[in-house]
């Protein structure tokens, strides 16, 4: 009778078909939950794609002239000293820009250079970026990478006066 009841569309019989299947009415709830979960899974990436990303950029001139460490770089002192052998580090500029995924954030870099950063996506607490460094009309580097949310990468080497430039690029979601 239970099967007939279901076919006629009235309230389902809650009699278990087998021992252990305790509530036959629950599949409806489960279906709703599954649909909800599927919706979240389908629409969550689209929502993430619309996230805004704060691109942090700073330019440091590193030289072997004298021994100076800019106080504004205090939080990065250990990184610079572990990664490089220069004796002087001076912060030239620092800039933050909030952009959406797919939008370009452009930064002037001393010495006629230009840095373009495009956040491509945000997934699983990682931000995917395209970074291009240009010197006038020349492309110095074009790279795609992902880094952890609030992570930083250093791009160094372009010569500037008697030293070199070290550019840090960071990204964090808003």
């Amino acid at each position, binding site marked *: 009778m239970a099967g007939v009841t279901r076919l006629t569309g009235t309230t389902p019989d809650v009699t278990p078909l087998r021992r252990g299947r305790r509530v036959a009415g629950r599949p409806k709830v489960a279906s709703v939950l599954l649909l909800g979960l599927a919706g979240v899974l389908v629409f969550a990436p689209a929502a993430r794609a619309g996230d805004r990303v704060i691109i942090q950029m700073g330019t440091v001139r590193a030289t072997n002239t004298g021994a100076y460490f800019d106080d504004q770089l205090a939080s990065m002192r250990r990184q610079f000293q*572990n990664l490089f052998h220069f004796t002087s580090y001076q912060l030239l500029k620092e800039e933050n820009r909030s952009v959406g995924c797919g939008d370009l954030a452009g930064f002037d870099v001393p010495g006629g250079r230009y840095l373009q950063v495009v956040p491509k996506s945000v997934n699983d607490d990682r931000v995917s970026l395209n970074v291009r460094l240009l010197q006038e009309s*020349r492309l*110095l580097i*074009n*790279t795609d*990478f992902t880094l952890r949310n609030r*992570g930083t*990468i250093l*791009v160094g080497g372009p*010569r500037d006066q008697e030293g070199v430039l070290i550019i840090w690029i960071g990204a964090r979601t808003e």
Partner: protein
Amino acid sequence: MNCRDAARLIDYFFDGELDGRVMRDAALHITRCASCESELHDRERVQGLLAESIHRELDEMDLSVIWTAVDRELALAPTDRNRSRFATAEVAGAESWSADEEWNGAGSAVTAPGTFGRRWSPVWSSLTVAGLALAASILVAVMMLGYGPGKEQTASISPPPHASANQVRIESMDYPGSSVAMWSEPEDDTMVIWIEDDDPTPGAGVPVGAAPSPAAKPAPVRMPGVRP
């Protein structure tokens, strides 16, 4: 440095374990010798595949189940270690029993309560399989990295450049007219991309907007003042 020297050092070079001068000599040889560069590419490929495989295994593991089980057993376990182990088995067995009763009705395939076989609960069986798979992956990784021509000493396995141990995962890189070195300091979890401009003449490089090449291996060229 010749190919024989490079073959002896290539694993250490790959792991970044050489000191500055030897590292530079090895880099100069390897980047100019097609055979040695191919050896290096092979290692990068193997490491990439292993990292990918391990990450896939980890992604598939439902770690929330572990904490649920741990919390439950911590709440029930007595202080004595042996008793704790036995009690844990009892609890797991009892749950296994009731779970099978619900799913299969009679539960006839399950060992009777109080016997050793009841320790094997569905939760722990899936976790054990996942754990064994992960352990097997790591074992294979260790075996593959430890094998290779010219390998005379056992090198430690450093985290692969693509692994999450480093916060940055490079997907592609194009550096026309330049040399690029990359290194990272695990302690600081920071990666450096170092560009050495080979031709500073304006306009000598590839015009802006040119199609980027596929992922390219940066030549590990070192700069004065830069720690390798």
